[in-house]
């Protein structure tokens, strides 16, 4: 491990060498490499997570560029995971990166997650969240949700096998649409903020062993800057 690289975070009294080494032994799957996933990957790579898989079958469009910091105009029409892998591998060589240019489905979710300690949701689809929830239940691992609606964010931690399930909280209504950034619009700092909250939680779970069940469901409005936490 390059101790100098991580010196500033290891200097934290509640982080230190042990948390850093624990983080280096952890593996994370990020679902979606858009406005959330790009920031999640950049921050987790910078912090020193040992292995990160990037899962997304989408290609880069011009309308992605204003909020997805891994991509530039020269990348339009390329696979997001391929471009992200090149950029992230160069910037954060201490992390083992893998690009998986596939969309998550109910059929492939378990196989895509089965070597990971944690899944982080960077998708924009209700059904995908249900499939993540089901796969994480089957594998006994937690996952971190985030969602965006205009200037509002939600962040929550689920650990379905321990009784905290997205499907249980929100129900069985698969097939719903209507709240995507494409339809509702979004300013770049909104997904960036939600993603950084997901990363902060991930670091605590992976590096400090904090219980996934200890987190509230968080709702924030970045117009009024009012936040609320909801506990089950």
């Amino acid at each position, binding site marked *: 491990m390059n101790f100098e690289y991580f010196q500033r975070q290891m200097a934290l009294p509640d982080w230190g060498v042990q948390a850093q080494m624990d983080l280096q032994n952890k593996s994370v799957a990020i679902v979606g490499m858009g406005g959330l996933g790009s920031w999640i990957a950049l921050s987790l790579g910078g912090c020193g997570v040992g292995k990160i898989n990037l899962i997304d079958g989408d290609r880069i469009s011009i309308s992605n560029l204003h909020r997805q910091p891994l991509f530039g105009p020269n990348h339009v029409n390329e696979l997001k995971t391929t471009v992200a892998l090149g950029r992230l591998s160069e910037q954060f060589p201490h992390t083992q990166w893998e690009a998986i240019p596939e969309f998550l489905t109910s059929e492939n979710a378990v196989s895509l997650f089965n070597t990971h300690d944690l899944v982080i949701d960077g998708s924009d689809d209700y059904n995908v969240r249900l499939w993540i929830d089901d796969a994480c239940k089957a594998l006994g691992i937690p996952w971190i949700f985030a969602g965006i609606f205009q200037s509002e964010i939600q962040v929550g931690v689920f650990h379905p096998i321990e009784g905290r399930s997205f499907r249980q909280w929100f129900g069985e209504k698969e097939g719903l649409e209507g*709240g995507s950034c494409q339809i509702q619009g979004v300013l770049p700092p909104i997904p960036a903020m939600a993603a950084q909250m997901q990363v902060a939680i991930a670091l605590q779970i992976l590096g400090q062993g904090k219980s996934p069940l200890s987190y509230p469901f968080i709702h924030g409005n970045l117009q009024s800057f009012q936040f609320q936490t909801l506990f089950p």
Partner: protein
Amino acid sequence: MHSLIFYGKLTTLCPAAASIPTQRSVADLRTTLMNTFPVLNNEPFLLATAGKMLQADDSLIGNEDISIMPPFSGG
């Protein structure tokens, strides 16, 4: 009465400010909401009050403000 606070996509489907008569239980609350706002039959959402999520078997004291929060889809 319970004042209702809708979030996310539900703000485009339900009135900005609404209230319903006092309910005795969360099960009653959910039924009344579905009947008053039929669009909720097709939407996932959780119910909360004063920083606590409401479970189906919870009882209500009366006159709580109720948050009706769907999962946000965007990302």
